[in-house]
């Protein structure tokens, strides 16, 4: 995931066709792909040569009769109907075998919960730790158990050659084994990026590493899910050791002591998908803007009105469909069980700063 702005042909480490191979499936999938590609190319080149050659060789002046009027040749036709079928059976079989591998997670896989919503991701690391980034352990078979809180989404990691739809109303599972660890960028590079960013949301595309300084693999939503479908992306980081991964999870578990509640609230606003629906500059998105929200009075869809106090904010986060603001649809997912009390207090503190 280094510099992608150059032509891939000029980049010796990457093939033209594929992103880097970073899971145990990648090699097999690429092999099946190449096999089909070569078989197809043989047929394609043959067909095109015949096409061009016949078009030139048998090009005749108007009215000159054809050299032959042969209208059929049954053995030949049977041959070209049945012959290629063997190749098709072969493709089907190799494809199905690799597929079965990808369907059956090994016993005792490391398990991570995934919640997809419009338009973001929440990874559940257990013990009340949630984070939008997917952090994995090198060479550890990992199973994702995935659910969606609104429409169909699809989790797609090109470098892993892995994809699975996430259908609301049921759990969908996928698994893979990451085989390439994420590098860490130098402390200087990270520090200068942090300084440049200040308190703004982190720009993954620009820096190509996470705010923790890791290089990453892209994770996309591949099933169309509405307005910000194309922004429903996150990153995958692969840690080399269990200790490193645990340390990362521990760090994300709750607000660090040296961070003020309103700053933590802002981080959560950017990280946990609030930003995709609520602006902080007053502009209307899918949900009401947070600017000047705290303390104001809101008209509700059912005709009543409510003052935006901490209780109302808490309720809106946990039971978003209970009191819907007039002019908006009840589309916000519930964050029940995903934010600690301290997290919610931090968000309230942050909203207050926006109303000063």
């Amino acid at each position, binding site marked *: 995931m280094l510099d992608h702005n150059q032509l891939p042909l000029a980049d010796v480490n990457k093939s033209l066709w594929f*992103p880097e191979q970073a899971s145990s499936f990648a090699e097999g*999938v690429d092999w099946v792909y190449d096999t089909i590609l070569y078989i197809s190319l043989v047929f394609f080149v043959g067909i095109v040569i015949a096409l061009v050659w*016949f078009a030139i060789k048998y090009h005749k002046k*108007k*009215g000159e009769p054809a050299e*032959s009027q042969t209208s059929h040749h049954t053995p030949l036709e049977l041959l070209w109907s049945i012959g290629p079928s063997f190749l098709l059976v072969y493709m089907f079989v190799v494809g199905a075998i690799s597929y079965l591998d990808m369907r059956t997670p090994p016993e005792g896989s490391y398990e991570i919960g995934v919640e997809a919503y419009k338009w973001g991701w929440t990874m559940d690391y257990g013990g009340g730790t949630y984070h939008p980034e997917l952090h994995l352990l090198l060479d550890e078979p990992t199973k994702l158990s995935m659910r969606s809180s609104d429409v169909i989404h699809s989790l797609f990691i090109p470098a892993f050659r892995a994809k699975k739809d996430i259908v609301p109303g049921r759990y969908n599972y996928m698994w893979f084994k990451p085989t390439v660890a994420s590098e860490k960028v130098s402390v200087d590079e990270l520090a200068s990026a942090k300084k440049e960013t200040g308190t703004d949301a982190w720009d993954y595309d620009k820096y190509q590493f996470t705010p923790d300084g890791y290089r990453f693999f892209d994770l996309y939503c591949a099933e169309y899910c509405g307005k910000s479908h194309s922004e429903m992306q996150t990153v995958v980081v692969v840690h080399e050791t269990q200790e490193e991964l645990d340390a990362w999870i521990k760090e994300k578990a709750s607000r660090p002591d040296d961070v003020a509640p309103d700053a933590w609230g802002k981080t959560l606003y950017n990280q946990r998908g609030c930003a995709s629906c609520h602006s902080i500059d007053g502009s209307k998105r899918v949900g009401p803007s947070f600017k000047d929200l705290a303390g104001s009075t809101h008209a509700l869809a059912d005709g009543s009105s409510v003052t935006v106090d901490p209780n109302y904010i808490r309720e809106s986060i946990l039971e978003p469909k209970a009191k819907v603001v007039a002019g908006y649809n009840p589309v916000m997912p519930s964050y029940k069980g995903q934010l600690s009390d301290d997290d919610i207090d931090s968000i309230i503190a942050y909203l207050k700063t926006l109303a000063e």
Partner: protein
Amino acid sequence: MSAGTLPSNVRDPGFPTERENYLTNSKGFLSWFCTLDHKRIGVMYLIGTVTAFLIGGLLALGIRLHLFSPEGWLFTDNWLGSSVDKNTIYNQVFTLHGAIMVFLFIIPSIPAALGNFLVPVMLGAKDVAFPRLNLSSFYLWMFGALFFIGALLSSGLDTGWTFYTPYSTTTDSSVILATLGAFILGFSSIFTGLNFIVTINTMRPPGMTWFKMPLFLWATYATSIIQVLATPVLGITLLLLIAERVMQIGIFDPEFNGDPVTYQHFFWFYSHPAVYIMILPAFGVISELISVHSHKHIFGYRFIAYSSIAIALLGFLVWGHHMFTAGMSSLTTIIFSALTFTVSVPSAIKVFNWLATMYKGSISLTTPMCYALSFIFLFTIGGLTGLFLGTLATDLHLHDTYFVVAHFHYVMVGGTLIAFLGGVFHWWPKMFGRLYNEWGGRLSAAIVFIGFNLTFLPQFVLGSRGMPRRYATYDPEFAYLHQMSTIGALILGIGLLIALVVLIASLVNGKRSPANPWGAATLEFACTSPPPYYNFERAPVVGDPYDFHDIFWDAENERYVTAEPEREIVPQTVPEESPAHAGGQN
């Protein structure tokens, strides 16, 4: 016999008079809009579908221009003064592009526009079996199109042309208007299909046995079967979708204990066969074009005919391959993958047969032939890339990426659209009695070919590198491939524009076309160009539609002529008296 020495007994219908010709025998707006003549209905469909294509094409250019830069280039947050944000505009544009192209252009173009014009004439009949049903199918088409435009003008539509639930049951765009539009278009499609089935079953003139039918008719017949059997499923699905939206009865929406994947099964049970509604007629057109412009008997007539029917039937069994990643059981998934491969065989057979037809032929590189050659090239790519998607391991990676976008554009645009253009150029002189500028036509074929490949080849690479489809913005690493694609689309647009100009110019100053400008042996070239109101002066004589032995180039008059009795005539063809349908009295 070589060119120049004509036998004495040649026949040439000459040119039609004003009064006999279907275009001019009656005048005025009403004479068109109340017409029961299949040829006029075909022409109206031609105008309608081409207009839909132009609108869909402009939307496509919008999509491509927007994707010129990773953050989105064309649409902005207050584009043309609207306050809708740019991603929403993009989503509406790609949805409408897809819906218009599929429902208003690709599905009706060949069967309804060319088919309506050609089926009765190729059959040697006077009209279709149910002329009034035919006219009503056109009005239904218009009506459905108005619903689509209504959806656009009210609150836009942003579901993608597939209307997947639960997105479509929860978004606040005009899903109901658009699905009603598609529902109505479905009826139009069923009427056309029904009409062709009955026409081909009952109105073949004496001697026109099934295996004496031109392959275009076989293809139309197979298509009609799918239209009649599959379209009702779409109708029911769309009604259920509307019911779900309005009453929340809980079929598809998990919030009310429905299952979204059920919708996908219903939808693709229609829409997969529907992709064969799109491509089978194209196969029919190409079979005619290759044989006529090679002046050689089509190779493997029966294999081609049977493979059309095989595709129509197998097409009903493979819908599940659109849901490999949706979470079906492993066994179901594997069965669907296996079935998917079976459809490849009949498609491959056709390509081999076309090549064998050209072998040792007498090929004229006319405009229709250039399009036909282009079709074989592009369709082969489209078909072969289907193999990557039918194979489970690779589909998991490629599903819902630009690879799929490229695949179905190679099949539907590189296949169907190119065949449609080839067909239009082939039958244009017949339809309007005018010859067009050959160089202009060939130039358009070349530019379309180049533009098309530049547009869609890079998308295979984009997809396998992991670029998902339906993205309004994308990671900068994909930019240069998107830019190639956008430039390609502009070139493609220019090529199509040239084709349009060449055709329209021919109406203004084209030379009059003889009855048989290409030297074809099918029946539509036995009547004058344009055909008379009742198609034939007298019941046509039926022979092998691909026997070129008795067709000669008359260099002096620059036209092909037919030497009457040399063709082997099926004995009972020569009618004793006028048969009821073929050119007899009303």
